[in-house]
Every structure is written in C-alpha cells, then in structure tokens.
C-alpha cells in the first residue's frame, strides 16, 4: 500500500474544510428554490389570480430547461383579501420560502411587502401598479411591472397614436374608474398627465365607482349624459362586464371604450360574457413581446399544459408571473445559493436582456428603489373575440378599428 505524504494529506484536509464552509447548493445535490407564490385564487379577483397561477404552473419546467434551476412553487391563496394576504405571506416564510412572488392586487402587495421587508425575504412583485410599493425605501421588494402613473402615461401617449392611425380625433371624453387603490392611483396619474400630453379631447367628467357594484346603471347614465365622444376607463374584470352591458342597454355608443392601462377589457371572461359587445374595446397596456423566442417557448408550453385556454387571454397575467419567477431563478443561478439575503443581493444585480424576457420592454434591471424602468405599452384591441396587438405596427397582429361600430 502506498503511503500518504504530509503534502497530500494537507491538500485533502484543506479541500474538505473548504467544501464544508461553502453554502449547500454548491455540493453535488442541487437545492430547490422555494418560491412562495401569493395570488388571489378566490374571491373578487379569482379569475385573474387563476390566470396568473397558470403562468406560474408552466414556469418550473421551462426554467429548469433554460437556466438549470429547480423551482418549487409554494402556492397560497390570498382570497382577494388584504389580511389573508398578509397572514399567508407570514405562513409561507415560516414554511421556508426562499423568495416570495405576488400578488396582483396593489393593496395585498403592499401588505406582503411590509412582511417581506420585516423578515428579510426577497419579494418579487409580478403585477401591482400602486407607485408607493417601491417608494418605501424597502431593500427586499422588487417589481418588474410599471407603476400606475407610468402605465397611465404610456397609455395616454398611445391614445395619440390611435387617433393618428385612425385619422379621427374625439373632441370630448369622460373618465370612469374603479374606486380602489389601483383605480385611484391611475386616476391621479391621468389627472396629472393629461395636461402634459397633447391630446385633442377635453375631459368633461370623472366618475369613480365601486368595483364590487352589481349595478352601474346610475354611473353609466351619468357618463352618457355628458355626451362625451370617448370613454376612458380604468376598471377590473367583473365591473367591466357590468359596465359594458349597461352601455349596451342604455344604447350609449361613444367612438371608443379605451383603457389607458387596466385589467378587464382584454380578459377571457369579458369576451365570453359579452360576445360581440366585447369587440373593439381597447386597452393600452403592458403585454407580452410577440417577437421574442422565449415568448414563443412560453406560449407553446402554456398551450401544451392548458390546451383549452387561449394564451392571449392570459397574456399579461401569465407572462408577468412567469417573468417574476424568471427573475427569481436567474438570481438563484447567479448567487448559487437559496440564502434569502444573498438572493436579494443577486436580484438587485439582475440584468436580463430585452430579448430574454416574455413581457414587452427593455432589459430587466432594478433601480435603487427596486423598480424596473422602461416597460412599454401596446395597443390591444378585442377583435373577433380575441385581444389582438394593433399598435405599434411592427408588432401588430390585426388592424385597428376606430371609431367602434355603434350598438343598438
């Protein structure tokens, strides 16, 4: 038997010590990245929450193939309730989530952000537009979704593009918006931005309404009474259906129903619930990038997993949720650890090129406040029962119809 020299023993001992000092994931067995996913899968926002969940369900396999990171989803239902959102976030952290992702609703997201910051757990916001989420000086909260004023500004600027493309300019408009955290943020943004953006119409009235209202007769009646040529709308899903139905009943046909950036009009339930009356409604909003290879891969995986679902109806919800998980997995890959603080540091250094994200925008890079800047909007119009990109022209999938045909 050969003998071991002191030099050889010393090298072996040093190697063993070095290995034992390193974080677990560098060892032969790979650790799973536990992602606590908080979404409103029941309650008022159930349909949208479930749509986000579908994007998340497709993500682990795709992320494993593309990044070699094993993502384990820990799903939690916020029940469209802010107190439940907070308590579920705390529970996920207790159960060992390395990072949190969520939560669609701005109110819920704010509550979860407080918990994440207090507990030192990185929290990647998939969708939530209230600007204050990334204005609190948090170190563990990150958002790849534009704040409401930015969505509103992009949405208003695109109005000008619509009028130029259609060669038609409405002279007057009425603005209706949901009276919740998101709606009020958007309303403030629109009020502040409208004078700065050169648009040809005069805003005649602003009408807030309860997103949980079952009857919007009075609100629509008041909007119709302004005789405005354009309806600007910031809405959710169920109220959008109620409102559009009421417009048809009251035979109110403005030139267009345009959202400067809110959910509702492009959702599947809106089109299926209203049939032909859903067509021609427009949303200027963030969307997936139809030209990126990763988008095609994601859409194909989505179609394979959910063959009965039309991907376009889940464009924003599924795509932004996927990109949030992409950010988490990318950070884990670079950090080579699931340690929460190290993950947060890695997320801060994220630099995913514009071509490597599903959603439409520039590179995913967080500023000092944890916010990605430069996400752009597109003009999405419901055509033949499907949300379709109509502007910018280089990405268009269909032709813009403006003004919309009259009803009744």
């Amino acid at each position, binding site marked *: 038997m050969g003998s071991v020299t002191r030099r050889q023993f010393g090298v072996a001992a040093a190697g063993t010590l070095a290995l034992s000092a390193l974080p677990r994931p560098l060892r032969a067995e790979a650790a799973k990245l536990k992602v606590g996913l908080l979404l409103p899968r029941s309650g008022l926002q*159930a*349909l949208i929450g479930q749509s986000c969940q579908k994007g998340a369900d497709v993500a682990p396999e795709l992320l494993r193939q593309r990044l070699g990171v094993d993502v384990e989803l820990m799903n939690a239902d916020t029940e469209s309730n802010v107190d439940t959102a907070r308590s579920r976030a705390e529970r996920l952290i207790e159960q060992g989530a390395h990072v949190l992702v969520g939560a669609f609703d701005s109110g819920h997201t704010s509550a979860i952000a407080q918990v994440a910051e207090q507990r030192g757990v990185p929290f990647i916001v998939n969708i939530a537009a209230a600007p204050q989420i990334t204005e609190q000086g948090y170190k563990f909260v990150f958002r790849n979704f534009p704040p409401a004023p930015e969505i509103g500004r992009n949405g208003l600027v695109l109005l000008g593009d619509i009028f130029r493309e259609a060669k038609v300019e409405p002279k007057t408009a009425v603005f209706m918006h949901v009276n919740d955290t998101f709606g009020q943020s958007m309303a403030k943004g629109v009020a502040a931005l409208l004078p700065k953006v050169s648009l040809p119409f005069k805003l005649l009235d602003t009408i807030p309404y309860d997103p949980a209202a079952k009857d919007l*007769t*009075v609100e629509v009646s008041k909007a119709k009474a302004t005789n405005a040529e354009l309806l600007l709308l910031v809405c959710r899903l169920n109220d959008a259906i109620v409102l559009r139905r009421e417009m048809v009943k009251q035979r109110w046909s403005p030139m267009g129903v345009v959202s400067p950036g809110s959910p509702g009009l492009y959702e599947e*339930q809106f089109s299926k619930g209203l049939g032909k009356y859903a067509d021609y409604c427009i949303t200027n909003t963030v969307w997936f990038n139809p030209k990126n290879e990763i988008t095609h891969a994601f859409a194909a995986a989505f179609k394979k997993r959910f063959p009965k679902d039309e991907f376009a109806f889940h464009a924003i919800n599924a795509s932004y949720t996927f990109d949030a998980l992409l950010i988490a997995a990318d950070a884990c890959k670079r950090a080579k650890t699931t340690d929460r603080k190290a993950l947060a540091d890695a997320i801060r250094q994220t630099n995913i090129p514009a071509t490597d994200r599903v959603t439409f925008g520039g590179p995913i890079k967080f500023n000092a406040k944890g916010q990605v800047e430069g996400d752009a909007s597109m003009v999405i119009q419901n055509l033949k029962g499907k949300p379709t990109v109509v502007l910018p022209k280089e990405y268009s999938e269909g032709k813009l119809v403006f003004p919309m045909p009259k009803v009744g």
Partner: protein
Amino acid sequence: MPALSHVANAAVSGVLTGTVYGLMALGLSAIFGVIRLVNFAHGELMTLAMYVAVVAFQGLALDPFVTMIGAAAVFGALGYALQRGFINRFVGRPEHSQMLLMIALAMILGNALLLGFGPDARNVPTSYQLDSFELGPMLLDKARVYAAGAAVIATSLLAAFFRLTLTGKAIRACADNPIGARVAGLPVAHLYAVTFGLGAASVAVAGCAMVPLIDVTPGLGPGYTLLAFVIVILGGLGSMVGALLGGVVIGVSEALAGVLITPSAKSMVSFGLLVLILLARPQGLMGAARR
C-alpha cells in the same frame, strides 16, 4: 344640473329596482312580523334562488321568469319543512340563540354555494337582457321592467293571501297575539311554518327576478340581508306595504343621489335617509306606532 329626462330616467329605474328590493324584503318582514325571528340567512336564500335560476337556464333553457313559479313552490315547501322541523325549536328561546342559529345557517349556505358553484360569477344571458323599451327620451331596461312586474304580482298575491284567506287571517292573528291564538286553538307551529314558507317563496321569486339583472356569486348573501333589514326597518316591521315602499325609497334615493350628487354617494344618501326617517318616525313609514 343634469337634464330632466336623465333625472326622470334614473328615478324610474330606481322605482323598478326598488320594487324588486321590496319583494326581497317582504319575506323578511313577514317572517319577523309573525314569528319574531330575524332571518339572518335571508340574503343567502335569495342567492340560492338565483343559482337555481342559473342552473335551470343553463340546463333546461328555462327563462328565470318561468323558473320562478317552480322555485317559489320548492322554496315554500323547503321553508315550511325548515321552520317546522328545526327552527321552530328555537322560537321562544333567547334572542341571541336565534340570532346565532340563523347566522350559522347563513354561513353554511354561503359556503355550500361556494363549494358547489365556485367563486366565478354566473350570468343568465336571456334574449332580452340587453334590450330596452324606448318611451320618448327614456330608455327602460326590459329585464328590470319584467322584474318589477313580477315583484308587483307576487306582492299582490301575498297581500291577497293574508287579507282574504282563512289561513292568512289566522297568521295575522298569530302575529297580533300569539298567546291568544294558541288559546283559540289555532295550530301556531303550522302557521309559523306556513309563514316561513311564504317568506322563502317570496325571496325565491325575488332571486329569480334579480338574476337577469346582475351576475351571481356566492358572496352576495350578506349584502342582500343587510339591504333587506334596512328596507324592513325603513318601511315598518311587519308591514308588507311598508316593505315595498321602503324598497322603492331606497331604489329611488340611490338613483337620484347618483345622478344629482355623485354615484359614490348612493349608499351614503340612502342610509342617511334611513336615519332621518327613523328620527321622524321610529316605527318606520308604515309601521304601527308604539303605545
């Protein structure tokens, strides 16, 4: 100031909606007026009736206004059985006992609906759902007109029952003097059960009438229970005409507040009106004054 036609349109719409609200509250008023039981599950019963209409439309292509006849009969029978077999044991017990029983029933029903139908909103897309009658400058929602018509017919039938039939008169006797009714040999337990059955039947009619107007979700119950209470208190406990009038007052005040002030003020104005009326007439609009 909005145009007169716009205000008139809103007022008429408020009357039509209020009539259906009144029918919904009628059942609660009858149950409390006779049995002295506060039915906290009232809104959930109405939501259940709405789901029955949805299922009948989706499964059998039955219009809700046709379904309401069968639904009234079934709910009436179920209400009778529920009162006779179960709730009756709590009549005469302390009020907090009754209250907890009905709240528990409400929660069981609400969660059963959530389990059975899921959280997604359901709708009954009738052929007339998006149509309107045109009367000069006014546009009246067809579904709302039909709903109000059904509510008026149902209320009239209920009023006729209580005024003209022997059973109806016996129920009124129980309401006026339950001890005297027992002494006179009236079958009080049976009459209470008939009353609960009638209350359940009227809420079934109201639910079927409402379903072409709004989307159904399992969580509608508590809102309707609160609304029914407000209407019953406003109209006067135990008064059927009061319940109908209370519903119309709420419907019209909400509509006019929305048009003349702002839509966000609808509930504020209608509840403010409730407070004012109760200050002036604590017994409600049509309730009997306390001696």
